[in-house]
């Protein structure tokens, strides 16, 4: 994980509009190597929106998201190459086996397609030849999380990763995150559950939601 | 044929000339009416919402 020391993943005065609703305004963040940021806040306060902003799926209505000082919108492919995004849905195709699913996503990223190791980190090695249609929600989520280990990425963006996970799987995830941070990686997690992440900073989105409504923002 | 009927007769093609003008005016008028009602409906809805806002603020100030 060659990461120039001190490169920061930063957000400046971010304003996010979803549909016609102002989600948050004037939000700043900064994540360095080895950092972990917990996004907390009420439902609809914009946790998922912020993660999508960080990933580049969503363009900010105002402000900019920068990687090492350069806006991510300039070279989206380069930004995609250095991140893993885990959303609410688990993209496991019913017709493909878990190993095939994982190998596809790995080769699409920077991985080599050898996935047995990655499956072990989330102790779903036994599922490798099981087609997607037979998996439970928890197994699908573990297969999805296995993508994190299957290919290298500096920035992990996890949107409520612990949903549908049992205690054992959650501890696997925590161990994987700890190893990732030790290697200089960055993590941003949105969660409702209290996560045992030492040294993780909290970013409460409720403090950024109280802004005037855009339509009424008349002089 | 006195001038009035000849005016409507339109050299035998009255059945085509008049409907095309009438349909045009009807469609343009209907579109205008629709736009106007769309605007009025919005304004009344907005007014009601604002009145409700004012009402809730009064109640809030009474309780405080």
């Amino acid at each position: 994980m060659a990461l120039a020391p001190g490169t920061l993943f930063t957000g400046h005065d971010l304003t996010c509009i979803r549909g016609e609703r102002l989600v948050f305004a004037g939000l700043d963040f900064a994540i360095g190597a080895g950092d972990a940021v917990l996004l907390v806040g009420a439902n609809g306060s914009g946790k998922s929106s912020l993660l999508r902003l960080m990933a580049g799926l969503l363009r900010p209505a105002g402000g900019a998201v920068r990687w090492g000082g350069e806006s991510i919108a300039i070279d989206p492919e380069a930004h995609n190459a250095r991140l893993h995004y885990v959303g609410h849905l688990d993209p496991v195709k019913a017709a493909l086996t878990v190993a095939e699913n994982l190998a596809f996503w790995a080769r699409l990223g920077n991985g080599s397609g050898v996935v047995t190791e990655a499956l072990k980190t989330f102790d779903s090695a036994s599922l490798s030849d099981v087609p997607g249609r037979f998996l439970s929600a928890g197994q699908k989520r573990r297969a999805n999380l296995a993508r994190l280990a299957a290919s290298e990425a500096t920035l992990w963006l996890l949107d409520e990763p612990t949903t549908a996970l049992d205690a054992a799987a959650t501890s696997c995830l925590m161990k994987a995150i700890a190893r990732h941070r030790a290697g200089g990686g960055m993590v941003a997690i949105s969660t409702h559950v209290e996560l045992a992440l030492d040294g993780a900073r909290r970013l409460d989105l409720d403090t950024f939601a109280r802004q005037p409504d855009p339509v009424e923002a008349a002089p | 044929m006195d001038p009035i009927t000849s005016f409507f007769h339109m050299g035998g093609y009255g059945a085509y000339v008049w409907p095309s003008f009438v349909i045009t005016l009807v469609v343009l008028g209907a579109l205008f009416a629709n736009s106007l009602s769309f605007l009025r409906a919005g304004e009344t809805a907005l007014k009601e919402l604002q009145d409700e806002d004012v009402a809730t603020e009064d109640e809030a100030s009474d309780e405080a």
Partner: protein
Amino acid sequence: MRRAFEIMRRDLRLALRQGVDSLMAVVFFVLAVVLFPLGVGPEANILARIAAGVIWVAALLASMLSLERLFQTDYDDGSLELLALSPVALELVVLAKVVAHWLTTGVPLIVAAPVLAVLLDMDAQGFVVLIVALGLGTPTMSLIGSVGAALILGARRGGVLLSLLVLPLFIPVLIFGVAAVDAAIGGFAARPHLMILSGLLIGAVALCPWASAASLRQSLE
């Protein structure tokens, strides 16, 4: 480019694993053409006269019916988000998926077309040009259709809406496709029509992935 081929390979594997779905387009194509003699009457001279038009309209409708699935399944299970976040340009992702879609639905239509031409007593001179014209037309339809498929993601009643959006845009392909076959049958040169068809294809390859990618980005916001 390796990653684009990776996406295409996965789509082809998915299509072959669920083989039945991609055959639906061909079955519809054959059925639609078979209905015409039942409706218009079996007289050979009438059928021969309208054969090119019937085959082209049925091919157009068949390829359009299978377009809705192009992005919808990936959109529903979250794969589309990850594809948009992969280090390959979204335009290339669209191109890879369109080529996979064309291979699974377009090519079977081209294979089935001569058989149906025989059913409709089409003049033998027209067969080769029919295949070449469909070979140029079906990829254009898949490309233009991919724009429609991307636009209706997340819309209510997407299927019907897709046909309303996409059919007017198919009209140039239909006109020159049928004109090419009719010219061949009539003994005229079919080259100018085929040249225009390939022009439409090249234009579609240049513009449609860009438009589809733009509307995919909108739908993922």
